[in-house]
């Protein structure tokens, strides 16, 4: 054959390459490729999981923020309610206090009136008693004075006796 081409040697070369190809394919290429594919799958799975977790976190965050803004509104309305309630309660307390103060004042006024009346009455009685006493005393004193004057007059010696006695 020209160029020293030999069919037998070509076939021998082919046989050599077929064996080499089979060994390299099954012993080296496939296991390494399988390992790489599995690792890629794992990475993709982890990546997907991370993305899913990220999405979940984002949605949770937005829901939380939404809820937070709702809570702020709720807090605002609650605060408003509480303020209104507080104002109403304060008004009620103030009203109650005023009513109680009025009652106390009324009571005090009534008691003072009663005390004044009682005092006036007592003073009248006392004055009356004093006047009675004074009148009685005056009567008694005038009577007694007159008796004593009488007694004294009676008991007083005559002026001649006084001179004799000296």
């Amino acid at each position, binding site marked *: 054959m020209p*160029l*020293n081409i030999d069919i037998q040697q070509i076939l021998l*070369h082919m046989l050599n390459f077929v064996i080499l*190809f089979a060994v390299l394919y099954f012993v080296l290429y496939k296991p390494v490729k399988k390992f*790489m594919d599995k690792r890629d799958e794992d990475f993709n799975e982890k990546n997907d999981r991370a993305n899913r977790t990220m999405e979940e976190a984002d949605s949770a965050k937005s829901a939380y923020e939404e809820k937070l803004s709702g809570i702020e509104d709720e807090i605002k309305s609650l605060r408003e309610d509480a303020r209104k309630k507080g104002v109403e309660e304060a008004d009620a307390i103030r009203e109650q206090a005023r009513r109680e103060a009025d009652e106390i004042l009324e009571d005090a006024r009534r008691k003072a009136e009663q005390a004044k009346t009682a005092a006036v009455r007592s003073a009248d009685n006392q004055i009356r008693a004093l006047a009675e006493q004074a009148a009685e005393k005056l009567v008694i004193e005038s009577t007694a004075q007159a008796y004593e004057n009488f007694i004294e007059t009676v008991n007083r010696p005559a002026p001649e006796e006084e001179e004799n006695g000296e």
Partner: protein
Amino acid sequence: MSRKRKLVSAGIFAVLIVLLIAGIILTGNPGAEKEPIKEVMRDAVLHGTGKVSLFGLIDVNPGLISAYAVSGALIVFAVLVRIFAVPRFKPAPGKFQYVLEKCVGLFSSLAEGNSPHRPGFIGGYIFAAGVYIFASTIFELFGVQAVTTSGGSISLPAPLADINGAIAMGFFSYGVILFGGLICSGPKGMLKALKDFSLPLSMSFRLFGALLSGALVTELVYYYALTSYVLPVVVGVLFTLLHALIQAYVLTMLVSIFYGESTEPSHKKEKRKKQ
């Protein structure tokens, strides 16, 4: 290093170089005297005289012995890697695992890019072909010696520098494309591959020519004593490395492209609905 030691080292090197030059001169220039350059070149291409016995059965070109040596080494390497390295692979690869994954990934992505319909098989095929072409071309650099049938010694060439090796590789690759098309897309796929009937010849002779040119240039450089110093480092090593990379890439690329074409599913033309 002291001055004295430097002088001693330089002296040793100088003596060694002088001895080597003397040896080269004394042994003569066998190529120039015994065999003319034409004969050397012709023998490098055709291997008419430098046959090697294959297990004492038949006389073959030294390229076939190189092919078996390379395949043996690759098979041992693959088995060792499968037994000791692959089970210890980690998700974060080490240096060796990284290189291996890069190699597999390179051919796998080449197959997926050029033959997206059936990338599994062709990925493995071009991996094996690429590794074989690269390793067998690099093999030339080791200068492994073999004994010829005439009793002389011969430096084993790259297996694909042997025309039989290149033809085997080219035709086998064409067969893969042809039968891949037949299996995946039926007779239409096979016909697509048959249209490119010149493909096996072009692939074979491209490989053969590229690798042989490197071998011839190296032979030429080594033939003359004057050019056989320093220059072979550049010519031999760099040419061989470049050939190894370029040829591995070219053949695997071509095979994956043509395989992709032949295995492409045929799209049936949609019939226009009658209105």
